[in-house]
């Protein structure tokens, strides 16, 4: 068995080499983080049109500083031992770190959290935890020893699950009065609304077989047979939103008939948004002209069009919209409640709120936040979106999805 010795030695040598490579790679990765933040400030080049990027750096910055300034004063009276705000720019070694867990779709401009650190001497470490459902489930499982201090991205479809598990500590943000009142779903303020948007059916303007569809009932019109594609509510959040929209509109009994009519009208079901929009919808070369997407899809279509276009190629069926609200909350078990509160204050302040639309294509919860031009020109929200309470959703979800599968599979 002597051959073992050499083979082991070679393996160990190779491993040593690989390990050193890893360490080098990790080191380079680490320095990239530091330098990359500055290097990628230009964001998405052409798309960051000057009109939209400029205000965030100038006029609005003052107002958001004021908001944060108020927070500073309050905090200082509470705890004198808190590290001094506004440290030397760049030197954040002595600053406490706060961990923010988000779903994978969270996006923010680099300079926004840098500005938070400059104002408060709190460094934000971002953690990604998959989609919203995955994030909430993981948070409940790790409740005794949470991975983060603050959670962002729990939405009204999963909110009750998080509240039932006592995930959050109550906190009322300093910006409370500026937030859209309709979004404050939790009277105990365990979560704070950050943004909202509508999940709606979209149509491809140039390829409709008949009239422009405007209502949910149009989707079951034989003229639109084989035109609509939506997603499985068990695996897709817009798919879930659409199922909830039909339940909100047609009631506990009526939705099943409606879905039977959709099936009879040859609705197509995919597992996720991407394979619907880019696989079956005309946008990606498919043949269907109506797809479940977002009210903000038309502005995104304009912003990311290549070659550029003047106006969106898609329209929104506002009657089909389900309102989705995303919240942030302080996770029970955090060791730094005060810093967590200041992060929530910052996320509801104007600087963060005005950064939201172009990064996540949803609307800021702060009514004082100004919208970017492309949203003003091409974005629109439903006047009376469909909705269900978080408690109704959590109580009904499993039975509804199981019944839904039966109907769709026939």
């Amino acid at each position, binding site marked *: 068995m*002597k*051959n*073992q010795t*050499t*083979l*082991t030695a*070679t*393996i*160990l040598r190779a491993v040593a080499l*690989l*390990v050193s490579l*890893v360490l080098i*790679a*990790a080191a*380079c*990765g680490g320095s*990239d983080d530091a330098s*990359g933040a500055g290097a*990628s400030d*230009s964001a*998405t*080049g052409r798309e960051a049109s000057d009109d939209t990027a400029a205000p965030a750096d100038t006029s609005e910055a003052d107002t958001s500083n004021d908001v944060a300034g108020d927070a500073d004063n309050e905090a200082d009276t509470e705890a004198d031992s808190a590290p001094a705000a506004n440290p030397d720019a760049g030197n954040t070694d002595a600053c406490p770190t706060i*961990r923010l867990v988000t779903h994978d*779709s*969270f*996006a923010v401009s680099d300079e926004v959290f840098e500005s938070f650190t400059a104002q408060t001497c709190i460094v934000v470490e*971002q*953690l*990604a*935890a*998959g989609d919203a*459902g*995955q994030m909430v*489930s*993981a948070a409940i*499982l*790790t409740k005794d020893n949470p*991975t983060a201090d603050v959670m962002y991205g729990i939405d009204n479809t999963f909110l009750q*699950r998080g509240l039932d598990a006592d995930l959050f500590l109550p906190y009322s943000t300093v910006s409370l009065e500026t937030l859209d009142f309709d979004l404050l779903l939790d009277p105990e303020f365990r979560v704070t609304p950050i943004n909202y948007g509508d999940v709606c059916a979209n149509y491809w303007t140039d390829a409709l077989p008949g009239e422009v569809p405007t209502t949910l009932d149009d989707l079951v019109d034989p003229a639109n047979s084989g035109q609509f594609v939506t997603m*499985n509510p068990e*695996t897709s959040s817009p798919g879930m939103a659409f199922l909830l929209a039909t339940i909100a509109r047609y009631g506990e009994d009526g939705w099943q008939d409606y879905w039977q009519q959709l099936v009879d009208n040859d609705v197509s*079901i*995919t597992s*996720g948004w*991407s*394979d619907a*929009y*880019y*696989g079956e919808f005309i946008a990606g070369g*498919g043949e269907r002209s109506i797809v479940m997407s977002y009210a903000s899809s038309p502005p*995104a*279509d304009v912003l*990311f*069009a*290549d070659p550029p276009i003047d106006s969106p190629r898609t329209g929104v069926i506002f009657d089909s919209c389900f309102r989705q609200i995303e919240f942030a909350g302080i996770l029970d078990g955090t060791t730094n409640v005060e810093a967590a509160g200041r992060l929530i204050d910052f996320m509801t302040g104007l600087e963060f709120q005005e950064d939201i639309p172009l*990064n996540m294509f949803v609307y800021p919860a702060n009514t004082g936040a100004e919208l970017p031009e492309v949203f003003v020109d091409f974005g629109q929200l439903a006047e009376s979106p469909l909705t269900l309470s978080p408690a109704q959703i959590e109580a009904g979800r*499993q039975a509804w999805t199981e019944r839904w*599968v039966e109907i*769709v*599979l026939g």
Partner: protein
Amino acid sequence: MRALRVGGALIPIALIPLAFIGVFFAWPVVTLLWRGLGADVGGDGSRLGEVLANARYQRIIWFTFWQAALSTALTAVAALPLTWAVANRTFVGRRAARVLVTVPFVLPTVVVAGAFTAVMDRFGLNSGTVQLRHTVAAIILAHVFFNVAVVVRSVGSFWSQLDRTPEQAARTLGASPWRAFRAVTLPRLRPPLLAALSIVFLFTFTSFAIILLLGGLGKATLETEIFRAALTNFDIPTAAALSVVQLVAVAALMIANTALARRASHQQRLIGDRAQPIRGRRDRVLVTSAIWGTALFLAIPIMTLIERSFARRDGFTLANYQALRVRARQLPISALDALANSLAFAVAAAGIALLIGGIASLVIVHGRSSLSRVLELATLLPLGTSAVTLGFGVLITLDSGVFDLRASWWIIPITQSLIAIPFVIRSVVPVLRAIDPTLREAAATLGASPTQVRREIDLSIGGRALATGVGFAFAISLGEFGATSFVGRRSDLLTVPLAIARLLGRPGDLLRGQAMALSVILMVVTALVVVIGDRFHPSGKGVL
């Protein structure tokens, strides 16, 4: 067993892989299942019985099993012609063929599924009489596409080194080439074939995105059902019960598989590359059709992808590639930074897989029988475990003290290496078992020193297999999606597959174009890594 001196203490070498699997796989998974079934609060795990008695779950278990079995069988059939060609004939592009089959392995499923759908549309397979969309056939086709490489590479490298004397004897005695293959070659190929097929089976048994994307509604497997229970319904007891069923099924099948492989692994002789030049017209036709048949099957979706990465509405563009340098709003870092992350993770994961898999292979081949069997099974199980179970298990166990690895850099390559280690072991073990002792004796007789003998023979033959396994480990890490997304990570540790999924999450030509360009770059990087790995393996010759 041999021991390693660490800090003055002697540690039996076999403990290293056992400890690794124990800490990073067994402990998290067992803790989660224990809690899920309510055993920690005095529950009796009755959910397990309910799941097994439920008719719907019985159907799901049966479907999971047969689709995996059929996928595995068809993968073997589809891979056989090319495996034969690369193992037996030297031809221009032989190495390239081995590299190209590996490429599908790293492609994000959502991208491949898109390409498949486009191809099926183009050939009219989604409408009309033949409808592939949302069928079991589409699932199986995609499984074959992803897994052909496993058979071609590991069986091919074994076969090319197999002593041809028995076949020649059979032919001299009048056997037809086909009969010589069936009666003489095939039985001798059984160990690597069983090893490769066990991996394909595990992959298809726990496949997730392909089932959802290509199978559509109603094609539930244990894996998709665990996901549904844990996430849609937050019914952890049911998820845990289903995970137990999955683990037990995988364990039983793998015990049977390893027993078969052990029984078959005796009379082999591996003596270095024995491939011959193409001779005659018939030979040329066979080789050419083997290559082109496989190439067409693999290349059509890949070509679609490449085309899309350059396409724009009014022609072709390089903009999608140029855009990768700048951070897209949807990503926390630029796509190129994500690529740097992915490469660093892949190097680390391959390194861990090489260390743990290499040691485990030696223990499996030379260690005591009981230990050997335990290790062989333990290292395979992670491949047959749901990403949900493993990811959530890690979150609730590796969370304090020295093992506080949540959101650390290392947890990602460690998790990925759990999936990669079986590839290293299943490539190396059949070869080490088959090294012909007379070969060593012959070398010694010819005057080679014992060290030379080991280096020249064990390393050139075993090393080639090791290189194959490590190449796979690299590719797996580059393409891994599920476990990476479930263990939780710092946002700036984004990997390429996760970045692609995010770019495809929003309307816009530019974002989709970038996702396609990033997929193409992922393919190219994988191909390069495999080429380099093949070239630098210890024998230094890089025959295969």
